[in-house]
């Protein structure tokens, strides 16, 4: 039996010790009429050879293309060392480090991760991960509302330029606590969220303001202005950031009025795209707010002999201690992704990460130039960009993307459903993985597709 080591002799000997006649008897406390019939709907077992062949075939059907998709998940180079290390059995097959003395590897890596995230974001403390960037936003809004200490404050300002899925997730998760997300419009010319758009809320009772930098359109927000607006009014500020961009951009902790909670998606830090997960939600905050933070936290302490070691700490915030008064219900988090991201950040260092960020930015600029050089394609916004941009086409995006796909190019994301007001809008992204010739290939293909269809 796969993964069950018991021999017939073992079973017999063990039943004898138990004093049971059969394994069946061990289930005698289960009402007999409840006991299941065989699992008819489950296929018969495959052996490893067979499943390997099946999965390899399936993987082959999902073949790779030249992709300019971004929108919250980014193709970056992942050093081979990252997963060679993260999948070592000692990391891969261990549990949450409840027994600290037997889990120093995971705990120290987590502490190092927290340190790196804190420094990247310009904050003082970070937690040991949340599920993903979107759910981290939800947790951040709930945390902000707690920081606000005004139970009646339930309205939260979230710009429309924040990732639509993030907004959806935040809505789904926070609505039960009575939080109401209010959409702040973006400026149609620049793609930025203007401070003026916040003004109508002046004097209103807000639980939090969220800002995404860069925003969903790839545009860089006037973070100082927005943060200051919230800061002046004592409204907790939640920042949503791309960790790669932080090698280049001023971190939320250094915004004119620093952020209170910073969250983001850690996927760009060495984690494969993998159809959407597992990814890595990170969260950082100021030390003063640490007791309101959800999720696990590793801390450094001393052992009996007075030597340093690591342990989970501030557990009184968590569900297994505080139960229905916990800061969150999160238990299992994205631990292994934390290890991977820590290895990634160690390999890149400040210089490497900056190089990645710069390459993304420069390539994206070249991409926009190349594509907007094609008749019928123009940039939607004038605001400064990081590594994504919204383009507007002279016709519906969907058939264009389909035609590109037939040429093995994934040309970006059609924004028709989420931002109908933008017309035929296409969100494109370039990272350091794209070469100039990739960009030329894309431009040539798009040019050909548009021309063919114009001609047709």
């Amino acid at each position, binding site marked *: 039996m796969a993964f069950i080591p018991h021999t017939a002799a073992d079973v017999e000997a063990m039943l004898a010790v138990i*004093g049971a006649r059969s394994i069946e008897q061990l289930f005698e406390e289960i009402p007999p009429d409840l006991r299941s019939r065989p699992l008819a709907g489950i296929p*018969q077992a495959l052996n490893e050879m067979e499943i390997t062949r099946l999965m390899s075939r399936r993987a082959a059907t999902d073949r790779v293309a030249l992709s300019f998709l971004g929108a919250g998940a980014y193709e970056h180079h992942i050093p081979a060392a990252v997963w060679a290390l993260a999948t070592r059995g000692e990391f891969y*097959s261990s549990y949450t480090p409840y027994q600290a003395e037997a889990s120093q590897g995971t705990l120290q890596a987590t502490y190092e991760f927290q340190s*790196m995230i804190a420094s990247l974001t310009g904050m003082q403390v970070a937690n040991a991960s949340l599920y993903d960037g979107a759910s981290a936003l939800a947790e951040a809004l709930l945390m902000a509302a707690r920081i606000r200490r005004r139970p009646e404050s339930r309205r939260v300002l979230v710009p429309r330029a924040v990732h639509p899925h993030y907004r959806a997730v935040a809505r789904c998760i926070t609505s039960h606590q009575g939080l109401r997300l209010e959409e702040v419009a973006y400026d149609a010319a620049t793609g930025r969220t203007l401070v003026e758009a916040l003004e109508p809320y002046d004097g209103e009772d807000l639980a939090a303001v969220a800002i995404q930098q860069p925003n969903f359109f790839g545009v860089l927000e006037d973070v100082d202005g927005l943060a200051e607006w919230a800061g002046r009014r004592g409204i907790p500020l939640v920042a949503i950031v791309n960790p790669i961009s932080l090698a280049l951009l001023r971190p939320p902790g250094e915004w004119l009025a620093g952020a209170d909670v910073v969250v983001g998606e850690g996927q760009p830090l060495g984690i494969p795209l*993998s159809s959407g*997960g597992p990814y890595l939600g990170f969260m950082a905050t100021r030390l003063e707010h640490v007791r309101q933070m959800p999720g696990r936290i590793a801390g450094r*302490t001393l052992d009996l002999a007075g030597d340093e070691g690591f342990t989970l700490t501030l557990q009184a915030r968590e569900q297994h201690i505080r139960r229905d008064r916990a800061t969150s219900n999160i238990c299992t988090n994205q631990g292994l992704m934390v290890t991977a991201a820590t290895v990634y950040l160690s390999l890149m260092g400040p210089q490497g990460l900056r190089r990645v960020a710069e390459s993304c930015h420069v390539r994206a600029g070249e991409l926009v130039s190349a594509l907007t050089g094609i008749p019928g394609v123009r940039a939607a916004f004038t605001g400064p960009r990081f590594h994504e941009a919204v383009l507007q086409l002279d016709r519906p995006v969907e058939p264009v993307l389909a035609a590109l796909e037939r040429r093995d190019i*994934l040309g970006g994301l059609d924004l028709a459903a989420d931002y109908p007001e933008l017309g035929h809008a296409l969100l494109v992204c370039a990272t350091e993985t794209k070469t100039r010739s990739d960009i030329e290939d894309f431009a040539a293909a798009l040019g050909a597709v548009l021309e063919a269809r114009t001609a047709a």
Partner: protein
Amino acid sequence: MAPPREPLIFHASRPGRGATDQWPREPGGAISIPEGLLRSRPPALPEVSELDAVRHFTRLSQLNFSVDTHFYPLGSCTMKYNPKACNALAMLPAFLARHPLAPESRGQGVLACLHELQGMLGEVTGMQAVALGPMAGAQGEFAGVAMILAHHRARGEFARREIIVPEAAHGTNPATARLCGAVVREIPVGADGDVDLEALRAAVGAGTAGIMLTNPSTLGVFERRILQVAEIVHAAGGLLYYDGANLNAIVGRVRPADMGFDVVHVNLHKTFSTPHGGGGPGAGAIGVAETLAPYLPIPIVGREGERYRWLTERDLPLSIGRLSAFMGNVGVLLRAYVYMRLLGREGLSRVAEHAALNANYLLARLVRAGFEAAYPGRRASHELIVTLRREAREQRVTAMDFAKRLLDYGMHAPTTYFPLLVPECLLIEPTETESKETLDAFVAAMVSIEREAREDPERVRRAPHTLPVRRLDDVRAAKRLDLAWTPDGRTADPPR
């Protein structure tokens, strides 16, 4: 062999050092970002060579206990063997490279796996529909409770806001209920480990939204009157939530749906052997009865003829919504899929049998060796509880001391002090993948520690002695917070 400690990676950092082969080339273009938005000081990431990093993390890994190196009978956690094939196949390059927003035409392989996984989980739980999005058990619970509340609201029953949980429930249950805006009502458990039916009857009413239960419970015993529980709750208009963390005890033997549950989450990282990864990622797939199906969280994988596609808001307008930016922990789901296919129908029904065999064998041997079962007279499920209250009283050697001393014997400790109900408890879950020899070695270690507790209790109280660190000071950790290394040598200050 591993060095007793490994310095922080920051200590290996030297300005200008780096794993340069990992860096992209100079981009060869200008940065067109307004000066004011740029960072002035680089982040304090370590500057180390690739060898430094590889050596550091390899050595760190060796400081961990893990299933791959040690027996790990952590109760409620189902630390079974994680087959290497599951990892290797989920990490096939084409699966890893696929962007979540890539067209469905370039994802039929992965979608087929997910669709079949939905079906297999439906079969195992007896539920009508399954969604794979929740990223851990707790998120599955959130989805479940949110659906229960949505269901009541859809029927106009806005007052049903109470979620009942037995006092032995896992912390995520009450925490989730609260996150969903529900009011938590705890009910007691009888001395035999079963729910107090009278208390339950007293608790239910017009305010009852539902009950959250795991069966077998966290007490390691099967709730025998589950059908009565279901009847009481249903009769009161509430729904039943099954916390699937303990599914390993019953997979292929009893289906939550048949016990009367309306919604269930399954910790794929427990029963279906996706790895724990030192804390995650997991996956908390959720299954529901017909009534709740319209509320399932999106996305779900649908099938039309030979093609698979994502179902979203458009298909499920009543959905409670979206729980992750994309599709949850797909890589974890693929591992569970491979595991289930490897076990198949036959194998899946052997899991609970041998998990129960191992637990009951361990219980029998420990009791014979003089340890006290928390629920004597009861069959163990896939796990068992011994209480060391006598040892604590007589030798002043606690469950925690036993746990730490077990580490010296080369075994991970069982879960301690959970469930909170049982004093000085060890919740022991051997899982079906461990052999009799390993269980015997565990009993021998327990017996030996018991003897030490009598003869040299200080040795047990000060354990562990052979690990890279001695016993750690948790109180100090929480009082003198040190949560991040900083370049100026000061670590985070104590909070006010």
